[in-house]
């Protein structure tokens, strides 16, 4: 039964298919820039993805009518809380047709500690026609898409990717610092 099958991950990002030693993460030189967007959150404040450059960002497309999405949201709340001091952030993009009418009551009922914006056809198209929910994009500190998850993923899978992206960035910074020190000497 197809109900037991997960939508196949695009081969471009599936670690096991690409031979990527970092699991679901694409090699850094194969990552594409995440399309920028500016959308308003529930308070009316503009949320611009470009403002998050330098952070690892999990962009999660979801909807209030999507059961599997609601399994992941508490994980993202936990990640936001656990890793925010390490330059990690979650951005929720709701694809509810009726926008805030459905989403605001949902946000009021659930303690979501990260910004949620209302998506539209344009952002869906920019991100490759997001049709299945949940769909999440892991964006690295350079603003590039490092992984895509279509459908309900494993919590550990997300967490491993977040930690690897945070650590990779730290390693890059350390490496750059070593080069600077060497150059000064």
């Amino acid at each position, binding site marked *: 039964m197809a*109900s037991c*099958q997960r939508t196949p991950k695009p081969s*471009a990002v599936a670690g096991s298919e690409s031979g990527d030693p970092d699991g679901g993460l694409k090699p850094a030189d194969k990552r594409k820039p995440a399309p920028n967007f500016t959308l308003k959150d529930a308070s009316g404040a503009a949320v611009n993805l470009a403002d998050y450059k330098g952070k690892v960002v999990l962009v999660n497309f979801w909807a209030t*009518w999507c059961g599997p999405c609601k399994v992941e949201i508490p994980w993202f709340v936990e990640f936001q809380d656990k890793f925010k001091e390490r330059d990690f952030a979650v951005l929720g993009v709701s*694809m509810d047709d009726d926008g805030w009418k459905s989403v605001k009551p949902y946000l009021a009922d659930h303690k979501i500690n990260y910004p949620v914006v209302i998506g539209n056809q344009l952002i869906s198209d920019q991100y490759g026609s997001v049709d299945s*929910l949940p769909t999440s994009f892991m964006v690295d500190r350079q603003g590039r898409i490092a992984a895509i998850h279509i*459908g*309900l993923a494993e919590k550990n899978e997300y967490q491993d990717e977040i930690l690897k992206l945070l650590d990779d960035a730290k390693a890059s910074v350390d490496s750059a610092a070593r080069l600077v020190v060497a150059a000064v000497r």
Partner: protein
Amino acid sequence: MTLLLVLSSLLFAEIGLAQIGNVINFTPPRKLVVKPGGGADSALKVELRGGYHVNSNTPSDDYLIPLRLTWNPGSVEAAGTVFPKPEMHKYSFSQGPLSVYTGDFEIVTHFKAAAKAALGPATITGKLRYQACNDHMCLPPKTLDVKLDVEINP
């Protein structure tokens, strides 16, 4: 804007997110033959792709989108719709069983013709709205157009 979309298309051509399309098909209903002042039933036979479910007309949660079949006014009037008895299924993402339909099922609408209805052929249109999921993901709600040929005979 067009340039932006073209660039995005090129950007994501390599990624190729899966597009599922319609997971519901239905057989166009048989012509409804009815007398002026009389009534008749019309069955819409729905086929749902294996592994998927749609919420029933009475979903388990206020946030879920119900299955709806609505008919526009025309030569006959929809006087009631009967949905099949929902199945209660527990999915990996749900805390409890959900009220859903799977596989093949029928939705029956009872139509009435006015006593002074014009004789002859006519067509009425309707909409089938559904929202489908499988065990791991959901698809956006969709609305399909439905057409019913009607013959009003004396």
